[in-house]
């Protein structure tokens, strides 16, 4: 009886990724889907057939925010501008780095929002203080005159 090489076929899935690789990488992306930092992922291949996985940012652009590629046994993680963030042959290390990068992205967004809030609050406080100062000055100026009239 001829044995069909089924296992090899089964192990290789979309775009040259193995099921195990996809499971682990996609699991590490999950938090970004939950917090709205990403809208989905897609796979593709390079000219020479190396698999790539693209994490897509939010609507309306759905642009790539992280890209994982496998070159031989090396995993390369890049951001959407092509900056290399990580390169290693360990899938587990890759998944941990993806999680950390996404956590930092979220932290950066929170930090920016917090800073913006403080700037707005500070500007508001300055305006209110100026207004209060002005009315206090007016009160000091006119109060004796009003008292004299009374």
């Amino acid at each position, binding site marked *: 009886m001829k044995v069909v090489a089924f296992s090899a076929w089964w192990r290789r899935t979309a775009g040259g990724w193995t099921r195990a690789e996809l499971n682990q990488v996609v699991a590490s992306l999950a938090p970004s889907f939950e917090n709205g930092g990403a809208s989905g992922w*897609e796979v*593709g*291949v*390079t*000219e*020479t057939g*190396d698999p*790539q996985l*693209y994490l*897509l940012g939010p*609507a*309306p*652009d*759905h*642009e*790539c925010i992280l*890209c994982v*590629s496998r*070159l031989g046994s090396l995993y*390369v993680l*890049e951001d*959407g*501008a*092509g900056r*290399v963030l990580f*390169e290693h042959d360990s899938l587990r290390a890759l998944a941990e780095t993806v999680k950390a990068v996404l956590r930092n992205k979220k932290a950066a967004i929170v930090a920016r929002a917090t800073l913006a809030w403080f700037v707005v609050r500070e500007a508001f406080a300055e305006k209110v203080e100026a207004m209060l100062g002005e009315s206090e000055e007016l009160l000091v100026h006119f109060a004796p005159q009003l008292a004299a009239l009374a």
Partner: protein
Amino acid sequence: MGPRTQFAKAAPEAKEQRRLAGAWLKQLRGRAGLSQIELAGRLGLKYYTFISQVENGFGRVPTESMETWARALGVKPSTFARQLLSYYDPELHRILFEVRQ
């Protein structure tokens, strides 16, 4: 009724435009006789994976490196940037360059 203004690009449109840009870049690279690896080398990139990301329509050529890409592909930088703008931001391209009929 006045003309309707659309403020946000529809997702499929932005994606399709990036895909078209990628196809155009791939064509330019082919014309220049370069592989993705060779182009990455000319751009000073450690890996060629970003070229693939852009050509597959998932990423964009960053503005700060458009000139380097143009020279590597043998295209005039202003022509290159203008063509990419027509894909990446068609509305801005229309405002800047549309010729009145």
